[in-house]
């Protein structure tokens, strides 16, 4: 379980028990974990797609800002990543 807050310059990766994939039947990205499924519709799936162990929070925000110029998405991205970190879906490298 994560106890602290999300550090923005550390690299993010998916928790090792999780599997992230596109589900045609759900028409959504999903996270699969032991005996469970979390649907990640819309932007949450797009953010999660960028978590591959090679990008930090800041890099993910920059990447998305480049992808969607002129959209103020920083707060939403941070909210989602903090949520995902708090739920232990993602980890930072230490």
């Amino acid at each position, binding site marked *: 379980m994560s106890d602290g807050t999300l550090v923005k310059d550390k690299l993010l990766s998916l928790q090792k028990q999780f*599997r992230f994939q596109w589900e045609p039947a759900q028409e959504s990205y999903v996270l699969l974990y*032991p*005996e469970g*499924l979390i649907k990640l519709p819309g932007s949450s799936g797009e953010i999660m797609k960028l978590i591959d162990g090679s990008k930090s929070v800041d890099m993910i925000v920059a990447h998305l800002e480049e992808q969607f110029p002129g959209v103020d998405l920083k707060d939403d991205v941070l909210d989602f990543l903090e949520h995902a970190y708090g739920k232990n879906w993602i980890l930072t490298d230490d």
Partner: protein
Amino acid sequence: MEKIGSLPMIKPKGPLWVNAEITYKCPLHCVFCYNPLDYASTFKSELSTEDWLKVFKQSRDLGSVQLGISGGEPLMRDDVEIMVSEASQMGYYVNLLTSGIGLTEKRISAFKEGGLGQIQLSFQDSTKELNDFLSSTKTFELKSKVAKLIKEHDYPMVLNVVLHRLNIDHIDQILEMAEAMGADHVELANSQYYAWALKNRAYLMPSEEQLRKAEETTNRFREKIGNKMKLYFIVPDYYANRPKACMNGWGSVFLNVAPDGLALPCHEARMLPGLTFPNVRDHDMEWIWNESPAFNAYRGDSWMKEPCRSCDERATDFGGCRCQAFQLTGDAANTDPVCDKSEHHHIITEQIELAQKPQPPAADIKPIIFYRDDKNSKALIEENT
């Protein structure tokens, strides 16, 4: 969405969760086993590897994402490796439910390589093994070895312990052993009374006092250990006054395939009379899930009787468990008698009253208890034919 009565008649495209009971063969003889009493009748008709892969593929195409590989002891088959890797490549999250017997370094490496998601290790202390278990000898040594393998391969250590009258008072020792093994998650689930466990119910149901103490001990342990080990304590449903939302509703998310290919909406449904369960050898999964009469039998609420039919909680618990209703009242469409609105609720309260009475220690009741073994299963098949 088609509506029958006032509950939506949900026909999801496919089951989210498929459980493959690949064999009922098992080296253990647990008195609380939920496999069917006549499990020995499936030995000669087990599905082949190709049959299983076909089932996985067809279900995956319907949107199934979770695959359980269980049994019996699934590791009694030597093709689990190929099932794991093929299913994982299809996009399943694959869960292996095992007693750990037969889990070797070679096999676990192959599972890891193949993409197995998690391993659930069950602690099967039948009364036969109770002493062994509590005195930390053979069983514990085997489990520790397996637990070490699981951790070495970077899996979380998920331990399932079935609790009952004969072991629940030793929950502190059970928890200490779980800690010594490095368990990350421990599920302390009281036995549910189906199949072998129903046969042995009188010896398995704990008293209220036992439950209270066990829950207290669990809470104390939880405080002591903190986040290092997660503990889940599940009381027997007989002690509730509303039934469990069994399987989240009949044919709603879960599909079980038995070793002989019978497709079932739960582990126990084979026992229900009047329904012809489809076999994966004869039908594809799409037909089985969406069209077969058996999978549609208890969807929605048109099948319900009173008090369920007019109950405002029917969308919460779906009237409970069809198999429990059948086992205890003789009619699967009756309200699960766990519900205190059921006219049959006295069946439950009578059992609970019985469970409050003292019983002789485990050693003295050995001859009466039914071990889940091939000899007993074959005898029960003969009795019923």
